[in-house]
């Protein structure tokens, strides 16, 4: 069985590594200096399989600060890094619905 550290992954387009912060579950992105940021704009972007694997494995080893670490697609647009699919958009922006408040009426 191939070690996860040697597994081949397929990367088509730019990706970031994302996870949830251990203490409060907030969405975080892996930065180039080995930290975790809540702003997607600060995420390290990888565009090929070997860079992705490297970033991913380093991030996974950081079980003390973040959990459920994985690669997520992004779009690189004029005004910065954007989530690359609906799921990542929802993770970044929150639920697409109004949250209940007050007396609910």
């Amino acid at each position, binding site marked *: 069985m191939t070690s996860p550290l040697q597994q081949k992954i397929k990367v088509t387009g730019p990706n970031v590594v994302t996870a949830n912060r251990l203490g409060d579950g907030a969405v975080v992105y892996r930065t180039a200096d080995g930290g975790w940021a809540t702003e997607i704009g600060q995420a390290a972007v990888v565009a090929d399989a070997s860079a992705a694997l490297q970033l991913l494995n380093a991030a996974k080893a950081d079980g*003390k600060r973040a959990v459920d670490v994985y690669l997520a697609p992004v779009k690189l647009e004029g005004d910065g890094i954007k989530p690359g699919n609906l799921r990542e958009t929802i993770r970044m922006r929150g639920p697409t619905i109004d949250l209940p408040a007050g007396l*609910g009426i």
Partner: protein
Amino acid sequence: MYHYDDFDRTLVAERVGEFRGQVTRRLAGELTEDEFKSLRLMNGVYLQLHAYMLRIAIPYGTLSSDQMRRLAHVARRFDRGYGHFTTRQNIQFNWIKLAELPDAMAALAEAGLHGMQTSGNCVRNITTDQWAGVAPDELEDPRIWAELLRQHLTLHPEFSFLPRKFKIAVSAAKHDRAAVKVHDLGLYMHKNAEGEVGFEVMVGGGLGRTPFIGKTIKPFLHKRDLLSYVEAVLRLYNQYGRRDNIYKARIKILVHDKGAEAFGKEVDAEWQTIKDSALALEPDVIADISSRFSYPEYLPLSDSPQELEAARKDAAFAAWHENAVTRHRMPGYAIVTLSLKPVGKPPGDATADQMDRIAKIADQYSFSEIRVGHEQNLVLPHVAQRDLPAVWRELEAIGVATPNVGLVSDIIACPGLDYCSLANARAIPVAQEISKRFADPRVAKDLGRLHVNISGCINACGHHHVGHIGILGVEKNGEEFYQITIGGRADERAELGTLVGPAVPYEDVADIVEDIAEAYLALRESPAEKFIDTFSRVGVEPFKERVYATR
């Protein structure tokens, strides 16, 4: 309802203490996520898209007003001021922080609330009919038996690491409102030829990837044998359920692979060796648990009091009364359903303010008791008929009196992709859109009883397989698509829905539901023929033709 004693309280407090230690060790890095995950799941702590989620058990859907107030407090103090009631009579808070969980759990424990075994590969919250103890068609109160089982299966040393989750439902009414046939273990109370009350035992029901209707392996089980028989079932499942593939790990797969008859024989063989052990439920134990349930001191009232008859002249009250109020086994009383499905709002949610008000209304008008139904609505189970007009005004004021109970806009929906990391697609905005299309109460009333169930993924938390109209979110090329079925039902005539056509994109779902509704109106023999009965009569083809004719 059941009242905790020192033993119950101590257990919950000790559990909080244990979890506090586990969280501390996790945050300090002494436990890896893999070592911690099952431990937190067994306390109802999930990791969702944006945050942790805490699922709190409401055993067999019965809640005191004090407990409701405590839930409101936790929603305010530790979450974002609201909670979501689920299809298994639990409540979920979506924004909890791991580091604060032990304190939140301690606050809950003081009111006898907890998240024990609401997730993980163990026995989950045992559900029953939200009208238990008050429905006129009930044989006897199933909650006594749900409570006996709950205690026996809480922190059971042998069954805390099962191959997969295990869900139990108990029902004791002619009309099964607890969906016992689609549970891992379904218990249906009934009388045998000798007039004794016992359980029909069904195993291997369930929805999800491979839906099954449960198979009867014991037509009649005596009350005395309940715990030993369930122990035998669980022991076989624990030993022989598959552990190599999580999609094949439920008991329904084991029952299907072995065959129900063969499985039943093995259960029986195991059961024979333990039925006369300490697990036998002696009358004194049964009597003791029963004595811990309190029942309201109902007043001797008459049906149709003057206050009610006068109020029914008001059209709005009458519409609500006809829809949301049901007969009670006691004369002069009524069962009131609070719709948590206001048009255009997320189904099944309640704010902390609403919870506090509902608790107050329950104190004043329902002997301080509230129920949670698996259709994600609440119930006030003991309202005097003469108080109905006053209750209605109070419920109206907090937005839980929409007269759509059981109608097309009383939608059951899972949290979906807006919250849940397992989801393929969103469920809540689909529900909101559908409810808007049927916002006109006359339209909804004319359509009659029509259950719409939405699941955001194949795990089927919205129970879409057994919806009259079932909607399943799937992913197609990165887009949200939905498969639509019709003709499912969860009651004693349980059936899985039939696909009506190819999957449709997000924008088309509400249109399709409207078309299905229109098809029903065209096909029904009379307004008295309900949607599900029309489907039984004509099958799926006429619906298919009409709905997909122009697509």
